[in-house]
């Protein structure tokens, strides 16, 4: 990312920016359908659309590596896990009348607050930083790797320890105690 010499307009309508906005709207729409639809499996499939839309946004910002990792981890694994769980429990075809929650207003408040926090943090952090989309790709695997292991090693390692702890915790929880009724 470079500090732009002149201040580029907020929405100079280049092709990439228009595409970015359109994909963003589609992603938001898919995400809204995900949380409002009454058909459980459809919700998971709309989640695929939303996550895929995010991957396209990354691509448009030339962060190719992040985009493919997004598809690999979220679309390829997390959603498959979700679908697996849904099929194991109860996934009727058609609408589920009970696929609704009394917490919807609380959830909406939390979602809006989280969104506001995230937008505020991002806007505050990247106030006058601009990505030059016309030059060489700035999110290639090389750049991402270098920045990850040069500037962000500590958070990276902390995250891996957290994941390891989660893994160990899951194994401990799923192990049946000796003598306990099965």
């Amino acid at each position: 990312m470079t500090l732009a010499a002149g201040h580029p307009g907020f929405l100079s309508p280049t092709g990439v920016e228009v595409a970015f906005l359109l994909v963003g709207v589609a992603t938001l729409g898919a995400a809204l359908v995900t949380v409002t639809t009454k058909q459980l499996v459809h919700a998971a499939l709309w989640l695929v659309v939303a996550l895929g839309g995010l991957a396209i946004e990354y691509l448009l910002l030339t962060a190719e590596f992040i985009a493919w990792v997004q598809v690999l981890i979220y679309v390829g694994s997390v959603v498959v896990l979700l679908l697996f769980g849904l099929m194991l429990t109860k996934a009727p075809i058609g609408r589920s009348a009970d696929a609704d929650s009394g917490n919807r207003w609380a959830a909406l408040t939390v979602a809006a607050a989280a969104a506001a926090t995230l937008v505020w943090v991002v806007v505050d952090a990247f106030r006058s930083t601009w990505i030059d989309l016309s030059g060489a790709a700035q999110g290639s695997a090389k750049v991402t790797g270098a920045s990850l292991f040069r500037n962000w090693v500590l958070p990276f390692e902390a995250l891996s320890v957290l994941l390891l702890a989660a893994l160990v915790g899951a194994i401990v929880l799923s192990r049946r105690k000796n003598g306990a009724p099965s």
Partner: protein
Amino acid sequence: MNDVLDVALRLVAVLVAFLVLPLVIGQTEHKVMAHMQGRLGPMYAGGFHGWAQLVADGVKFAQKEDVVPAGADRRIFQLAPAVALLPYLLVLIAIPVGPHGLVGTVVDAGLFFVLAVMGVGVLGSLMAGWASANKFSLLGGLRTAAQLMAYELPMLLAASSVAMAAGTISLPGILDAFHWWWIPWQIIGGLVFFTAGLAELQRPPFDMPVADSEIIFGAYTEYTGLRFALFLLAEYAGIVVLCGLTTVLFLGGWHGPMAGSLGWLWTLLKTALLAFVVIWLRVSYPRLREDQLQKLAWTVLIPLSLAQIALTGVVKVVTS
């Protein structure tokens, strides 16, 4: 204008390969299986050794009625074959066939691109399994999902070992860095990758999700006509993609004598050889049970791929 023409030509070439190669492998499977079992296989369609059998099959599939079960989730049921098939077409674009840019398009993070997009194809089977409103289909979908989750990890680990060795995740870049001694060095990773790939494609001996003697045809039980043919095509396109990827990652792709002019031929030959092995395994191995399948992935393949990564790391540090 020339650039546009260049891109269009490459895409057309990939599309032709996508339409022709799976059929060639399908016909080879007919013949190889037949000869291994002491039969002749198709002999009449087209005259010479039944070469047109699959074309005739295609015509037959296209004529059949396209039935959607009454209880099915119509739209998802109809969408599923496309979701299963298209990822393989996309992957084919990124597989380098020869030196000097003989590839659909150079993707910077090519390795991750192909693995990510291949993983999406399984969503098609899951959608088909759930939307069919059929217990056998649902069971098939469940088994597909369980199998994918078990075998995705060793596949990724084996592929990342090659990326470590080459120091890049671009597929042409990996081939540029290749030396002949990579084959013995990465052989364990290669075997793990190929086995895990077979499991992702649900090819025998990993065809638990479509085990015909237990659950009819798994997620595809309710499909007829063209949509069923698309699922079959996805399976054979998957074989092409898996064999091509194994060739590129572990067997040196276009490297070989006279690679400059005959590189593409080497890629095709190695891919064809692997495809033959895929067919051979189908004929010679019994189907693994679900627990054996999971055990193989978690207790054999993952430790092996981790050992391969350790070996790659040690050699890399020693030689650099």
